[in-house]
């Protein structure tokens, strides 16, 4: 009886939250039709949030659960999502409806990914995972998002690392004649190093574009060679090292004899379908992320712009945009930059100059929170996850206590620091790029897995010690 009552209460709250999002959307539409661009971000965020929560889709758990508990469900789910998304990305590129752009390729991506990987294990969730967990009422995840926000904002504007910046970066940055002072260490790194690195998208390389004519370069180059085959490789490795032995043992027992290749194939399939909700959500997330790109491109065509900053300027909100007249508007699923903008917005309100730098001042701007399109996508993720968890009686406010406060803030800050130098996180720097034919995505992914391995080693040691110390019967 009490259970049924809680269920109904949860569903009522789920309807209320959804109703609020509808009302917000209508209010934006009424204020100005240009805000429909922003409303699209809200609803895709909402959809991501629902899917992430339902599938327990968190990239921290992909490598962490594999290393800590030998459970591959999330690693499998991500690879499935990535494969589906890569095919849709290829389709969009082939029809000139893609907003994807590759990132500068270099060792910085691997290093950033490693820092991010340690951070996500400590925080208990990746950048997107922490957002959906806030929607479940998780206070530790809220702290990690604060860590990500302010960690990035501070990291992007301070001159703390100037003494170790190579002179060549400084010279290169100055030569670009940017309209800011270039005092921040990150400015010198960004304009003096990162911008000078090559951007690679397989379909645009000489070899692939000559070998594969027409649209096939997107499907075979970006999707098959750059995303699907590299995604199958970890699946085979995970099966070989974590699943195969146990699965074949069971099979041999059932059959009462030897096992063969068909049993191995059955083993791989059983690994993929072991967590149906995660794999199913992997497929759906891949498709929805592709649809998101398609719709954003459609909005850009409809309003005749390539960045939401142009619409903000038309509406007279010139203080929202950067010196280039732009705001952060990725055109697809992204998590961390908008959170850096949130941190910068708060710091600016506290009287700190956050605009005399490349990251905010020249590139991304600092829009008012309610006019920040990508930030609305993050809020949408929280609300979508909240609705899903309310419907499934999984919502519960959990205030962070004790050690979790430290892990949440420290992990979040490391994720912030690990995402800024790579210009993205587990979504922007790994998922989107790896599926879009940009090998730097895989470099970031390898870094994340390495960092997660280190984080798991630490937590294993920590848990043993804590159990032995605090638990009477251990």
């Amino acid at each position, binding site marked *: 009886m009490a259970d049924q009552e809680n269920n109904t209460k949860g569903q009522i709250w789920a309807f209320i939250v959804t109703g609020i999002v509808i009302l917000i959307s209508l209010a934006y539409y009424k204020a100005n039709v240009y805000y429909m661009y922003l409303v699209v971000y809200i609803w895709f965020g909402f959809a991501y949030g629902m899917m992430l929560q339902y599938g327990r889709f968190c990239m921290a758990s992909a490598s962490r659960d594999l290393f800590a508990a030998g459970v591959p469900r999330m690693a499998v789910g991500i690879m499935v999502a990535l494969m589906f998304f890569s095919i849709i990305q290829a389709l969009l590129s082939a029809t000139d409806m893609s907003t994807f752009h590759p990132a500068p390729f270099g060792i910085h991506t691997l290093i950033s990914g490693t820092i991010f990987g340690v951070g996500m294990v400590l925080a208990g*969730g990746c950048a997107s995972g922490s957002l959906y967990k806030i929607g479940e009422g998780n206070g530790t995840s809220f702290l990690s998002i604060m860590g990500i926000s302010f960690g990035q904002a501070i990291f992007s504007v301070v001159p703390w690392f100037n003494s170790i910046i190579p002179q060549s970066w400084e010279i290169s940055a100055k030569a670009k004649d940017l309209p800011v002072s270039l005092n921040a260490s990150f400015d010198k790194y960004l304009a003096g190093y990162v911008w000078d690195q090559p951007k690679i998208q397989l379909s645009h390389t000489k070899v692939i574009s000559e070998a594969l004519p027409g649209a096939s370069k997107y499907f075979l180059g970006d999707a098959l060679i750059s995303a699907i085959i590299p995604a199958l490789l970890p699946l085979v490795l995970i099966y070989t090292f974590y699943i195969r032995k146990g699965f074949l043992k069971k099979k041999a027992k059932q059959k009462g004899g030897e096992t063969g290749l068909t049993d191995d194939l059955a083993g791989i399939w059983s690994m993929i379908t*072991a967590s149906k909700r995660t794999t199913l959500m992997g497929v759906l997330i891949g498709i929805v992320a592709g649809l998101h790109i398609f719709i954003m491109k459609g909005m850009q065509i409809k309003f005749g712009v390539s960045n939401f900053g142009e619409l903000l300027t038309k509406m007279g909100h010139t203080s929202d945009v950067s010196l280039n007249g732009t705001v952060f508007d990725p055109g697809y699923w992204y998590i961390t930059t908008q959170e850096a903008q949130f941190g910068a917005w708060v710091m600016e309100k506290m009287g700190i100059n956050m605009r005399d730098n490349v990251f905010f001042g020249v590139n991304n701007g600092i829009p008012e929170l309610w006019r920040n399109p990508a930030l609305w996508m993050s809020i949408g993720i929280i609300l979508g996850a909240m609705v899903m968890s309310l419907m499934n009686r999984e919502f519960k406010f959990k205030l962070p206590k004790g050690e979790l406060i430290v892990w949440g803030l420290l992990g979040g800050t490391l994720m912030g620091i690990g995402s800024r130098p790579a210009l993205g996180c587990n979504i922007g720097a790994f998922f989107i790029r790896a599926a879009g034919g940009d090998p730097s995505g895989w470099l970031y992914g390898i870094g994340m897995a390495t960092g997660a391995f280190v984080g*798991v080693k630490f937590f294993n040691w920590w848990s043993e010690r804590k159990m032995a110390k605090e638990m009477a019967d251990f």
Partner: protein
Amino acid sequence: MAMKFEKTGEKSYLLDVCGYVCPHPQIYCKKSLEKIGEGDVLEMVFDNPSSAETIIQMLDQGGHEVLEKKHEGGKIIFRIQKG
């Protein structure tokens, strides 16, 4: 923060990790199962839904049996028999 691992009977144990988020519930579950004997029953109480999916797969792969799963006011309770 308080968590509990107690012997509650001849062959039964309780692990309470309410308030803990990923990855703590799954790590403590794994370590508790390593501690108890084959056939012993572990009652695990936690309130982090994201850990549940991983724990179920971990138990399945490890050959442990979930005797009972229930929700009680935001808490998730698994009764697990070590295999």
